[in-house]
């Protein structure tokens, strides 16, 4: 068994409602886990941003300790006029299309902590020996666009977010 990993998303007021075992994280103009992104697109002509998205790693299974967690994205500027910003956060705020104020999402790795066996937001600790279910800090991300984007309507290339940790 060892440890297992799934992605949980926070939606709604203070991003406090969990949707577990996510299978998509499309940036879109609505804060929910059900609406297709095609039904709520981001219009670069209007310099629109996506809703901020809160997602965290959820560990399960068996493990002796977890530590040294980082998270990064493979590319935070997929095209002229498109940028992906993000930060590891210790509290949730209600998702919004206003600019989050976060810097470009790190391509080298942001440190994150382990918080609790229950979904939520907290400072957490850099290592844990609790075993079983364990949530991490959330990664808040947002796709920001400007009218300089020349790609036209359609999807952008999928990005890869990589979580790295040490376990025993």
């Amino acid at each position: 068994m060892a440890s297992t990993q799934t992605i949980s998303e926070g939606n709604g007021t203070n991003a406090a409602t969990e949707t577990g075992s996510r299978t998509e994280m499309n940036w879109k103009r609505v804060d929910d886990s059900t609406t297709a992104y095609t039904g709520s697109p981001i219009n670069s002509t209007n310099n629109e941003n996506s809703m901020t998205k809160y997602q965290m790693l959820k560990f399960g299974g068996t493990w002796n300790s977890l530590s040294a967690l980082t998270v990064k994205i493979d590319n935070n500027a997929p095209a002229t006029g498109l940028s992906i910003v993000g930060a590891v956060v210790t509290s949730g705020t209600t998702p919004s299309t206003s600019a989050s104020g976060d810097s470009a999402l790190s391509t080298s790795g942001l440190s994150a902590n382990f918080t609790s066996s229950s979904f939520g937001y907290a400072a957490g600790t850099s290592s844990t020996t609790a075993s079983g279910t364990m949530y991490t800090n959330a990664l808040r991300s947002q796709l920001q666009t400007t009218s300089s984007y020349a790609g036209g309507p359609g999807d952008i290339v999928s990005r890869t977010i990589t979580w790295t940790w040490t376990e025993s």
Partner: protein
Amino acid sequence: MSLPIDGSCEAEYADGYIHSETEHDDVSPYTGEHNILNDILEKRPEAEHGPLVRFSTFYKDQRYDVDWNDLPDNARPVRWKRMEADQVGGEITEVRLTKVGFGYQWNDETGANHQEVVEL
């Protein structure tokens, strides 16, 4: 015969019993909620099977051993795994083992901690 999965560990005890992470799917048969390394660290098999005599890990078709017979009494096994998980489109699509640390640690008479750990 293939060796156990990379990064997994096992321990052999005085009566020949082998406590294997792979055999138990990394779930403690003693508690049902811990992993096998935790069993070894907490000495759960020793009441029935005697002292630890060998601690091993597996990586890239090799078994790496520590002979426990000549170590200090307070020696503890070390085995850690550096892991990566890719999230593409919101889903975890791949989990990789990138590095394994293996060895032991102990405290001397002053309480200072010492480690003999190799990165595989």
